[in-house]
């Protein structure tokens, strides 16, 4: 047990008498005492930080299983009992449980406006060679002078990734 009233300051490194601690060292928390941590807690060292994809797919799996389970329960209930109101209410609950993926916004349904890839103004025209949208013919001159990689970068900023032929 760390004694109460031990130094709360961020202490410079022990044994660093040979040099004055730099600002970074003074700010470092590495050697500060942490009495509030439970020393008996052994983290599951093998636990790796899962990445986003695995976490989300795990969630989806669980949600799906839950849904299956609840649906089966409901069916059983329908067969055994005839309490319509209660069943329907539970059904409503099941459908409405929000999960991380269910509250995600749907894809857009509105027709897209075309904006010039170079200047950002309105773009009524599209260049057939590169697929870039442009505002007027002076911008078109600029596009003609772009290299293939620059044109691809502009398209990537819009989210269009052309397949390399």
């Amino acid at each position: 047990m760390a004694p109460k009233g031990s130094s709360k300051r961020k202490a410079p490194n022990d044994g660093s008498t040979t040099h004055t601690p730099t600002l970074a060292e003074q700010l470092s928390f590495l050697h500060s005492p942490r009495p509030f941590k439970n020393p008996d807690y052994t983290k599951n060292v093998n636990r790796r930080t899962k990445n986003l994809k695995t976490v989300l797919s795990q969630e989806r799996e669980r949600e799906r299983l839950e849904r299956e389970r609840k649906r089966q329960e409901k069916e059983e209930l329908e067969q055994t009992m005839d309490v319509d109101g209660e069943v329907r209410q539970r059904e409503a609950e099941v459908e409405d449980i929000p999960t991380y993926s269910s509250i995600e916004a749907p894809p857009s349904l509105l027709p897209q406006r075309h904006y010039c890839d170079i200047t950002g103004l309105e773009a009524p025209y599209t260049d057939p060679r590169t697929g870039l949208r442009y505002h007027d013919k002076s911008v078109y001159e600029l596009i003609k002078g772009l290299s293939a990689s620059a044109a691809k970068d502009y398209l990537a900023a819009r989210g269009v990734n052309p397949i390399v032929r």
Partner: protein
Amino acid sequence: MSDSNIFHVPSQTLPSVSPADSYDAFRAQDTPLIIDNGASHLRFGFSTAPAPHSSPNLIAKYKERKFNQPLLLFGDAIDAESGAKGQAKSPWEGDVLLNFDALEHALDCAFIQLGIDAPAVDHPVLMTERLSSPLHSRALTSELMFEQYSVPSLTYCVDSLMSFYQNNRSNPFTADGLVVSFNTASTSVVPVLGGKGVLSHAKRIPWGAQQSTEYLLKRIQLKYPNFPTRVTSSQTSWMLHNFCEIAPDYPSVLRALKDPLKLRAAERIIQFPFALPVVEEKTEEELARIAEKRKEQGKKLQEMAAKNRMEKLLQKETDLQYLVNLKEGRGENKREWTNTLQSEGFDDDAALDETIKKLELDLKRARKKEVEGDDAMNVEEPSFPLIDVPDADLDDDSLKEKKKQKLLKAGFDARLRARREKEKEKEEKDAEERREEEDRERNFDEWAARLRREQEAIMNRIKDRGRRRAALSDRKSAAAQARMKNIASLAADDRVSKKKRKAGGEDMFGADDEDWAIYRKINTAAASSDEEEEYNQLQAIESKLLTYDPTFTAQHTHASITSQRSALITAFRPQYEEGDVEGNTRIHLNTERWRVCETYFSPTMAGVDSAGLGEVLQSVLARFSDAEKGRLVKNVFITGAPSHFPGLPTRLYSTLRPILPPEMPLGAIARAADPALDAWRGMAAFANTGGLPDVGVTRAEYEEWGGERVKRWWGGNWNLAEG
């Protein structure tokens, strides 16, 4: 360009060492500990404190190079060490809490800052989580809090609802409203009815401040591909905060900006730090000294060369003397004489005579040069006596001589002819120039008009050539196909008619000189000699026009016409001179200011396939009945740190107004009083009302149910693992 438009990028300020809080006030009290775990900032403090500690939610474990010390830096402190920024990790990945090592370190640092020195964190904790965050995140957080820090109870809440609570305080909490929350990696719309968040109808758009910053950075990089310094994301987010606004009506803003003048007026110039190149200007003395040195070196070389020549001359003179003596000392004995000659290296008499003559000539020339300086010698017409003598009369030696003389004469004649032709050409050119001058002086307008027509004709030809080249590169154009036809017909066998082939005739291509002209058509590498010729002609004409015609200015020349950039492009991205270092480290933001914020309303502009804010609001409201809709829209509330973009309330109002029935009253869009900190304040307020024990998960409950289960309450998430 007004100077007030120029803004300088803020320089890095070093963080300061701040002492930890004193824990005495809170020891052995059960004051709730409020932690607003945000993706960009971690705000923490005790609920009775007036304001939380706020620090960027980043951890860097870095081994310092200079003294080889390992460091653990948190939040702002990372700026103290430049190498640590690359190692900074955040517990969040977008909107999901994933990196629990980082979270553990962050919480450690937070608790140390609060000065907690008890063996356990003995306060009920109220923490935020994202809207419907994945259960995995919650499970690990609970594990961390309960096992590592031994908290007595833990409650989760949604930050946007807490901010709403803070601004619509009532006890019990029964406000209605529509909460639009802008977070780091997402934007969410949450309807609140009767004090309860209707999370099933909430929606989240995967576009937040982080994505906007990246988009702005990408646009800047595309606009300035050769920018001298690197633009970091922190600088970009500074730009985003200070210069970007939401247009009340994007298409009309764009239409206004079409005009280059308005574009110029609307721009903001960001000046990046630059370093002027140090020009080593040698002072005048130094320059003079260097010139002196060079002159001396030149003189020395000249002297050396002269000395060499003198030496060679002397050598030649002695040789000549020797040979002449030899010749005079030639005795009657022929054999002795031939022996002597051979020992000297001469084949026969004639060779000896030749060498003597050559030496004499050289000496004469050299002496003449020395005496008169570099005078061009008159070429005497050398005599060729033997040419006219017929072959039969000469003997072997003389024949050889004659051949030699013929060759020499032919060369001499050719040189003479060439010289005469050159003179003739010069005369012709002079005559032409004189004629043109007369023309010009007599009838200036006609002359100028003629020249201008010629210039236009040449420019057209150059343009045609360029167009033809472009057409050839496109596989499907008519020019390319014609070329292919030509190649095919050349390669085909049936160019030679059948009769000729039967008679054993061969391919007659090339007999006629003009056949080769077809290769010029096929060759795609543009005929560069033709181009050069045309350019030279163009230059000549233009220079004449420039000097004599007052109305023909530099703007009419071909060079300036081709390099003309439209006014729009120059307004959009002004060009600076090559040497203008200050100008070249400037970024002009004009259309980007509105474009980047417009992505909130239409993320497809940036390639994210999701509905924009307007659409989402519409779809969320559509799921409610009219009566409920009325209650919701009376109180539309914006919160979250990125919500301070100017123009946001007006835009939301104009988005909402058309989709609601006209008689429904739409309240003015309210903004959180303090967008960044209100969530924390709401949480603190709620904790102070003592509502925590009802909704928190205690230690015992955690151990029984595990980390994923929470109690369902108005401010928290509600998902599958609810108890």
